[in-house]
């Protein structure tokens, strides 16, 4: 226990860094993912194709590969980052965006057909149908899966710890190396701080799910 209390500032710092990575990547991924989903259902064939290929490839890429690419391959190709956080955010948001796009698309499919037909019959164009009628309803129904994706994002941000970014996992690894005799306590501490982030999100997801279920 003493190890955790002694190094509480370090844990706290790591927690904030993990939170920072997750929030920034989460926001970028939400925006990019929604745009990808919109492209996926758009009348323009090239956009549909691009979105499909992007989602298919990124969803089937291991996150470690994405990180390896952003943090190790890109710098050696001449694209250097001032901070590795940038590489981590690129990898995390590019990866998560694919999953968000899939979730939003399934939400779009779940909106009753009549909604789109009604919107079209009063003369709305595709952009209006999507942004004013379909997406607001679609996003509401996919809030629980989106929260689950964000939980996965928080957990996935731990991979950044292995690629030169000091966040919760990174600090944990450092502490574990420094306190070889108390590895178990150190790592259980890290686990506790991860749960501090993921469990409330999980409860939020199931609460929202229940509310949506009642509303329907």
């Amino acid at each position, binding site marked *: 226990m003493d190890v955790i209390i002694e190094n509480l500032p370090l844990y706290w710092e790591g927690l904030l860094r993990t939170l920072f990575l997750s929030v920034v990547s989460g926001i970028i991924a939400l925006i990019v993912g929604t745009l990808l989903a919109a492209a996926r*259902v758009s*009348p*323009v*064939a*090239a*956009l549909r194709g*691009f979105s499909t290929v992007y989602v*298919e*490839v990124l*969803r*089937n*890429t*291991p*996150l*470690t*590969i994405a990180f*390896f*690419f952003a943090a*190790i*391959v890109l710098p*050696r*190709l*001449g694209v250097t980052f001032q901070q590795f956080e940038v590489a981590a955010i690129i990898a995390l948001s590019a990866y998560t965006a694919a999953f968000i796009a899939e979730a939003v698309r399934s939400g*779009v499919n779940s909106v009753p*057909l009549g909604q*789109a*037909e009604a919107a*079209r019959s009063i003369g709305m*164009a*595709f952009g209006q*149908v*999507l942004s004013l009628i*379909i997406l607001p309803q679609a996003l509401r129904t996919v809030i629980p899966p989106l929260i689950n994706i964000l*939980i996965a994002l928080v*957990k*996935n941000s*731990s*991979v950044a*710890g*292995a690629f030169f970014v000091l966040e919760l*996992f990174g600090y*944990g*690894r450092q502490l*574990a190396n420094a306190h070889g005799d108390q*590895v*178990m306590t150190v*790592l259980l501490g*890290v*686990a506790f701080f*991860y*749960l501090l982030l*993921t*469990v409330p999100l*999980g409860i939020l997801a199931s609460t929202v799910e229940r509310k949506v279920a009642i509303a329907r």
Partner: protein
Amino acid sequence: MTSVLYDVPGPKARRVSLIGSVAGTVLIVGLLAWIVMTLAQQGIFEGRRWAIFTRGDVWMLLGNGLGATLSAAAIAAVIAFPLGLMLCLLRISLIAWIRVPTRVVLEFLRGMPVVLMMLFVLLVFGTSPFIAVIAGLVLYNSAIFAEIIRAGIQSLPKGQREAGLTIGLTSFQSRMLVELPQAVRRMMPSLVAQLVVLLKDTSLGYIVAYGELLRAVQVMADFLGNAYLFPIFFVAAAIYIAINICVSRIAVWIERRGSNKAAGGVAKAPTAVVAPELPEVREPK
């Protein structure tokens, strides 16, 4: 292709859409060309850099890495699935002091990064990286399998369990003989999709120094020099993505087949067997 989201395009809309398509294609091709140009300036496309793939030992190392990846995934999946079934049974047990602790354990496992579990096993138990990778994958995925199967059981009509109990099965027998087989079949697409996640997560072995595909890339790049990093990485990533896409396709295929079967099953099911062929009854003599 028509969609409910927009009108069937007329001549003007078709023209706009065509222009959009062309512009989009040009943009994407331009972006790709820029990337290729940047890469070419780094000398990525020089023949000598790709010539390493004519060497057998490069392929052998890649093959070893791939073998390590696949074997870890296969072993983990084989252990995690029965464990997940068991956890699921404990999770829905009628006895509170079994159900509640199991639920806490499952929540704990699901809220944990997999790589943290791998590191935990590696450092705390001092195992080999291979064991650590498998243990991490098993712990995490059995929890997920348990939740998937539980969702399957909950989605069954209540009558299934009631019927099971009515014909005199015990609660456990009803779970094993009536509910689980249906739940597993119903959740097959999700289970296979989770296999893709498991396969992807083996790459986390890179972090705990397990000699899987990505580690093989790193080792070769360190040995052969930076110049070869990109070609090797490119090939390894392509292998990974190709395998995962194949497994994902299988999941989609199972889902489609399952739904076809269900639809066809109801539609084609005979309403009544009019004249069942009775076995010839011999008059007792």
